[in-house]
Structure formats: C-alpha cells, structure tokens
C-alpha cells in the first residue's frame, strides 16, 4: 500500500515537472502570437495579453492588426512566401528523387566504380557546409547562376547525406529476393526502382522530403549570399531584414516571424510521425 502511494506521488511529481517544462517551451510561441497583435507600450508592460478592464482582465480592444497591415504593405512578405514555398518544395522533391535513386543503386546494384562512389558519399557527409561557401560562390559565378533560384536548388538537390540515408533504408527495407523475382519476370531495372523499391522506401521518402523542406525553408545564409534582387528573397531573408529597417516595430517583426513559422509547424503537426522516425533513423541504424 505504501509503495503504491509513493508510486502515485512520484507519478504526479513527474507529470507536474513535465507540464512545467512544456509551459517553458510553449511560452515563447504564445508570446510570439500575442506580441504580433500588441502595441509597443503593451509589449513592455504585459508578458502575454495586455492588462486592462475587458473580459478576464484583458484589454482586448488594445489588440490590433497594425503589425500585419504594415507587414503586408511595407515588406515583400508575399513574394517571400511564394519564394520559400517554391524553393522548399522543388528542392525537397528533387533531392529526394536523386538521392533515393543513387542510394538504391549503391545498395542494390553492383557495378564498376561502385565502391569509389560509396567512398565519395561517406567522405562528403563530413564536409562542413561553410567550407564550400566561398568556392561555391565562385562556381555559381562562373556558371552565371548568381541571383537565380537555380543557384539554390541545384546544389541542394544532390545531398550526400540523403544518399547515405537511402542506402541504409534500401539495405533494410528492399529484399533482394523480390528484386530477383521482378528481374526474372522481365522487369527493367529503372522501372523496378519506381515500381518495387520506391514503395518499400516510402517512410524514408516522406521523412527525407520533410527534412529537406524544413532545411530549405529556414535556410538564411544561402539566399543571403546568392540572391541580390529583393523580389526574389525567401522568407528567412525578408523577415531578417525587418530587423534592420523596422527594429522598433515589434508587432510587425513578430507578425512576419509568425507567418514564416506557422506553415512549417502546421505541416509538421500533420506529418510528425514520419518526421521523427526519419530524423532518428540515421542515428539508430548507423
């Protein structure tokens, strides 16, 4: 009986602790939403909602849409949203297609140079991105790709890490006997990849697409270096520039940040299972 009570007590304390931690992690989000509707003086005076004599002691009438109005009128937020959506979707599809094909080929097909290609992938996984920043800029300059979306899509469409992940996934999820059976039935190799292997790799396809989408959506240094025309800037650059021009306009800056963060959060909420499994698969298997 005593151990049962202490166990229940322990469970209550643990849950209370977790609730407290969750609140700490949630407060910046709630604050972000509240701040985007508040006036500057209310930002300084209240933590979340402005205090006043409305319902529940909140001055609802002092919440306003000025931040959003300024955001849509004075900053290229729409073009930023279109740019981010375009870049993230196209890169996610291309990177997933190219690295799943390459990863599958390295896992399941034997050909001359197979070992060399595999070594290349393994070596490239550890190259840190900043090293390629300056020379990558020179390459893009030589190819005449600066200030174009190609300069962001093409380099990101061939990630070594993606090939590594898809090779691991193909080794685990695509049985050789199945491929053999398809071969005997006269199925072509490339068709076999799309009809037999790709459906079996579906969990990794979903996870990798999401990871790539998120990576491109939040990428700041790439577009900052490569793009010059403000009309082409994605959200990360558009929003970061608010800090320079409108650093006193808290509501406007936070409205822009919220508009950038919200689509990704919603996408993730819908697909979280695949995302987390994909995120950890490299670590647990590798």
């Amino acid at each position: 009986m005593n151990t049962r009570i202490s166990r229940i007590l322990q469970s209550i304390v643990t849950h209370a602790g977790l609730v407290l931690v969750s609140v700490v992690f949630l407060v910046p989000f709630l604050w972000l939403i509240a701040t985007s509707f508040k006036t500057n003086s209310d930002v300084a005076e209240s933590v979340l909602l402005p205090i006043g004599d409305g319902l529940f002691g909140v001055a609802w009438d002092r919440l306003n849409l000025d931040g959003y109005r300024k955001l849509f009128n004075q900053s290229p937020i729409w073009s930023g949203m279109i740019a981010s959506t375009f870049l993230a979707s196209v890169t996610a599809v291309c990177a997933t297609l190219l690295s799943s094909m390459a990863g599958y080929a390295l896992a399941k097909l034997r050909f001359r140079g197979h070992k060399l290609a595999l070594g290349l992938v393994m070596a490239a996984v550890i190259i840190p991105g900043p090293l390629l920043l300056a020379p990558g800029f020179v390459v893009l300059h030589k190819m005449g790709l600066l200030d174009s979306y190609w300069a962001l899509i093409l380099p990101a469409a061939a990630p070594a890490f993606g090939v590594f992940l898809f090779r691991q996934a193909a080794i685990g999820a695509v049985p050789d006997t199945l491929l053999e059976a398809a071969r005997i039935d006269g199925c072509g190799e490339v068709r076999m990849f799309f009809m037999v292997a790709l459906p079996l790799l579906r969990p990794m396809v979903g996870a990798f697409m999401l990871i790539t989408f998120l990576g491109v959506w939040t990428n700041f240094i790439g577009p900052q270096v490569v793009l010059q025309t403000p009309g082409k800037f994605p959200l990360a650059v558009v929003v970061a520039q608010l800090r320079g021009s409108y650093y006193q306009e808290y509501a406007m800056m936070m409205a822009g940040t919220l508009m950038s963060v919200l689509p990704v959060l919603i996408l993730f909420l819908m697909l979280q299972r695949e995302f987390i499994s994909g995120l950890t698969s490299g670590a647990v298997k590798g």
Partner: protein
Amino acid sequence: MTTLNMDGPSVRGKMKAPVSPLAKRSAIAGWLMLAPWLLLFIIFTVWPLFMAAGLAGSQTFGPKVTTPVGFGNFKNLFADPLFFLACKNTILYTLGSLFIQLPLALGLALLLNRPDIRARAFFRLVIFSPALVGAAFSAMMFAVILEKRTGLLNLILNRLVGWDVQFPWLQEHILPALIIASLWQWTGFNMVYFLAALQNVRQDLLEAARLDGAGPIRRFMLVTLPAIKPVGGFVVLLSVIGSMQLFELPYIMLSSSGGPENRGLTVVMYLFQQGFEAGDLGYASAIGWVLAVFLMMLALIQRKVSGDAEVQT
C-alpha cells in the same frame, strides 16, 4: 546478397568470368541511376572543394580579382586577433550548449521514457517543436525576447524573482543569451535522439538489476548508460558540429554584426564577413579549412572513442 548481384564483383576479380547480360544490365542501370546525383554532386561539391584549396592560397576581391599569396592567408589568420576572438566565442558557446543542453535533453528523455507517463506524444511534440522554427526566425524572436526593458525574459524574471528589467543580454551578456536561445531551440531535438536511444535499453536487464538491489543511479550507470552510449556519442558529435557552425542566431539577433565589442562574433560569421562583406573569398576559404580540419578531427576522435567503447562492452 543474391547470386545475380554476385556477378558484378566477380567481373572485377581475377577469374574474369564472362559478363552475364543481367549483370551488364544491372551495371548500366546502376550508373544511370547514380548519374543525376553524381553530376550535380561533382559540380557543386567536388569542384568547389578543389577550388577551396586554391582559394585558400590566394587573396581575392570578389569572384573576379585573384592574387596568389601561398600560405599567407593562414599566416595572417593565426595572427588575427578577431579570428581568435571568434574561435573563443564559438568554443565557449559550444561548451555551454554541450554541458547544459545535453544533460537536460537526456534528463527529459529519461522522464518521458518512464512507463507511467501519460500524453507522452504531447509532451514530446511540445518540447521538440522549437526545432522546427529555424535559426533565422528564432533569432528574430530572441532579438525581442532578450530586449532590455520590453523583453519577455527580463519581464518574467522580474515578476518571479525581482530580476533587473534593464539586464543587458544583447549589449553585454551575449554568450549566455545565445546559449539560452539555443537551449530553447535544440533541447527537444536532442531529446528525441535520446528517446530513440533509450528504446535500446533492455528492460529485462533493468529488472534484473532492480532485483539484485541496484538503486536508480546504479541502474542508470550500469545498464542504461552503456546501452545509449553509441547514440550518445553521435548526439554529442552532431551537437558540436552544429554549434561550431553557429551563424544566423547571433548575426540576425545582433543586427548583422558581431555585436558590441564583437562579443557575439563566431567563426562562420567571421568567414561570412571576410568573404562576402569585405570580399576576400580567399581568406574566407582559409577560415573554412581551419573549421573543416577541426571538425574532421573531432569526428575521427568520436569514431575512435565510440569504436573502443563497443569493444569494451
């Protein structure tokens, strides 16, 4: 391995067996499927990598004007007080993140992994969600959260413990500010890895240790820790690699600069400033190489340490 696939390697072997049509077809298909990725990879990774070697030995102004300087860039770099400041800041930030964030992430993972936890998926989601925000956007948030008089952190701390609302996070205490921001953003991310690792802990071993009278701390040290060690090493490495490349968070938070007295200057920020603000892509490449060599050495050490650990257990 199937018999069909075995045909491939034997072609390269000493026997020179006749190439079967199936193996030939498989070889062509293999290259065909590798080709699109390989082409882009060679243009945008291998070529720049070779170019980085050349660039590091030259002084440039933008992509067009280049003068060879041999090892001059590295010589200047190792006498450059700003580079040393950037290294110091980056390393302190990395150590701070490592020793505060990872124990916290592991602790939360252990809590969430208890069998009696309800709404586990909810807690995991909430704590993980800041990882989705992206450094550029969290920098925007924390630029205001850490503001002197209006910032959320000073306001809350003031109401809770009478903290000074004028506490200058972004003016003087920039490193702690960066560590706090990244604590919010990445603790849940690391927790998810630890949670996955905890699935490798054998419940029967834990139970056996409990029956043998081992307390919770001994059970953790003897059963849980060895089981999560491989993933733990990976998380440490990932976290160090990520922290050493810190850029967006201070750069945006401090309005496109290293902040007052460059207290928030990081290695990658210095690389960016030298390469794309001052226009010396050669010096930037030299900084890139120093960072790359440092990170690769860490990766090698990690591989050796975790390799040895596996041999021991």
